[in-house]
């Protein structure tokens, strides 16, 4: 079939190639127009500013961190009332404050300290609103947006959004222009420098050229297989410990997904002693810390609880740090290669602590109060802590190789604080780039979970 399809097309007609040449000629002419001398550009800018400033500068500023409110059972929203009188197109102007400069080749979105040594200053992400939008959401659950440019700066045009997660940056609402600017601030930037930077941003009446729709992702609604692109909120689905999981491999020759590996958990054990464990079976990322005492008993873990500030009214601070006993959850997984060739497998299991709310939804236990942004830093290991040896040349923490028709049991382990073991679940990592993918890939926002005790 591949041959038939590859030879299906006629040669590109000459008239089409001619159209390409014409477009290139136009691009070349544009490039000549762009090469205006710098002083001339300054003159143009000055003339334009004098011409435009008195009547159409939109400078009203509202810092939105203070306005975040809980919405339903979902998350935080920023109260924004859309200014119906705002112009359709706006032009963004930044009079970069003294001591900073625009970082080259960043589309006018990054600013660094004006010094010889590179020091990060600000990153901005402008977002334009239109129609009746009352809530903004920047990191999850985007229902619909267009990627646009405002005065050559990439930005988002938000059409209908809600459910905001994680207010940990600076949001500045330029009310008269209906633009929200997300500002990331460098570690060395002081409050007064931030204030000066916010003041340096203003908007003037723009034209279509300043506000050009560049890329529009497809809307996810009613398209289940696109849903995962824009919805990062997972639905957890608990399965029995001994459920057989099928891994599909993609055959690039035939273009078809085919069964390659089956896996099943055969045992889960909990211990607090790692005496006798081969050091090379411990994930190197944990080897630099002191793991166990001289008898092999796991050392306690210091669990820190943090409250993340909104960047405006509150700062990020540690609320507590407490030493907690740890256990090691060891999981035996039996893998079977059902093909007659060697295959690599990705081990998708992670250990997370989850709690169920009154609606029957699972939430991450470390999110102690997500509306107040109070989070514990990890009750369990984020990555595999222990993995049994599985061959001399293919030792790796993620991708063991299975020989044709081979069945092999691999043991993996995660540390978790003892008092959270009741909430501990093996969670399947939502992989898309894995060597093999579990066959629930058609439900990309579903994460299968298995309770460990």
């Amino acid at each position, binding site marked *: 079939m591949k041959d038939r399809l590859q030879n299906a097309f006629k040669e590109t007609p000459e008239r*089409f190639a001619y159209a390409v040449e014409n477009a*290139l000629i136009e691009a070349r002419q544009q490039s000549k127009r762009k090469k205006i001398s710098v002083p001339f550009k300054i003159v143009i800018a000055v003339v334009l500013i004098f011409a435009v400033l008195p009547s159409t500068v939109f400078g009203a500023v509202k810092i939105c961190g203070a306005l975040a409110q809980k919405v339903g059972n979902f998350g935080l929203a920023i109260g924004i009332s859309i200014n119906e009188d705002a112009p359709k197109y706006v032009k963004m102007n930044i009079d970069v404050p003294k001591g900073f400069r625009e970082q080259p080749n960043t589309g006018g979105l990054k600013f660094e300290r004006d010094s010889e040594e590179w020091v990060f200053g600000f990153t901005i992400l402008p977002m334009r609103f239109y129609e009746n939008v009352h809530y903004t959401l920047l990191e999850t659950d985007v229902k619909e947006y267009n990627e646009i440019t405002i005065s050559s700066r990439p930005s988002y045009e938000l059409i209908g959004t809600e459910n905001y997660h994680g207010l940990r940056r600076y949001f500045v609402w330029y009310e008269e222009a209906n633009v929200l600017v997300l500002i990331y601030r460098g570690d060395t930037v002081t409050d007064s420098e931030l204030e000066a930077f916010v003041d340096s941003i203003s908007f003037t009446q723009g034209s279509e050229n300043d506000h050009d729709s560049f890329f529009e992702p497809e809307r996810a609604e009613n398209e289940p297989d696109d849903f995962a*692109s824009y919805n990062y909120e997972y639905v957890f689905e608990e399965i029995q410990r001994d459920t057989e999981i099928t891994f599909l491999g993609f055959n*690039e020759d035939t*273009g078809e997904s085919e069964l390659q590996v089956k896996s099943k958990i055969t045992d889960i054990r909990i211990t607090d002693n790692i005496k006798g464990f081969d050091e090379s079976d411990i994930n190197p990322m944990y080897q630099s810390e002191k793991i166990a005492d001289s008898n092999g008993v796991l050392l306690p873990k210091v669990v820190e609880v943090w409250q993340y500030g909104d960047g405006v009214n509150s700062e990020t601070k540690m609320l507590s740090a407490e030493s907690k006993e740890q256990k090691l959850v060891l999981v035996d997984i039996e893998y079977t290669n059902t093909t007659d060739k060697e295959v690599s497998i990705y081990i998708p299991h992670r250990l997370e602590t989850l709690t169920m709310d009154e609606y029957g939804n699972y939430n991450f236990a470390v999110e102690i109060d997500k509306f107040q942004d109070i989070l514990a830093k990890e009750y369990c290991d984020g990555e595999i802590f222990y993995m049994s040896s599985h061959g001399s040349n293919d030792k790796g923490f993620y991708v063991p190789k299975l020989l044709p028709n081979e069945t092999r049991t691999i043991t993996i382990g995660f540390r978790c604080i003892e008092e959270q073991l009741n909430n501990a679940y093996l969670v399947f990592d939502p992989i898309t780039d894995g060597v093999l*993918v579990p066959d629930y890939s058609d439900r990309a926002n579903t994460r299968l979970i298995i309770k460990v005790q």
Partner: protein
Amino acid sequence: MDINKFEQLVRASTDTLYRVSMSMLKNEHDAQDAVSEAILKAYENLHKLRKEEYFKTWLVRILINECKLILRKSDRIISNANEKIPEITSRDNPYLSVEVGEAINSLPEKIRLVIVMFYVEDYSIKDIKRVLNIPEGTVKSRLSKGRALLKEQLL
């Protein structure tokens, strides 16, 4: 990247631009418009391209968005005027084999695009994922569906 290099890379991509735009739009006039717009936008936004090696992928992504814009406009025109979709003329038929052409054209647009990119343009799964901004699983499922649909018609 200077204009000379830009021109060179665009010319080298001409066949791909033709096949991708024709497979989406089925109309050479619209395909030429989409390609012209895409080339101009690519040039205007060249500073956003991080690595030259991604040029072709990036250009095709812009082209696909241009094609979508045209499709959306024509959808509106057709639905407003309540007209039938015009028959494809021979000039607008990019396929050598009538049978294969009809089979490809009969595929839903999203599946058709993935099939053409994978089988005709030799894009990898990862590149298609990047260009279309969809998950790898979606690319694979569209390929599987497309292949199954083509099999029904061609085998």
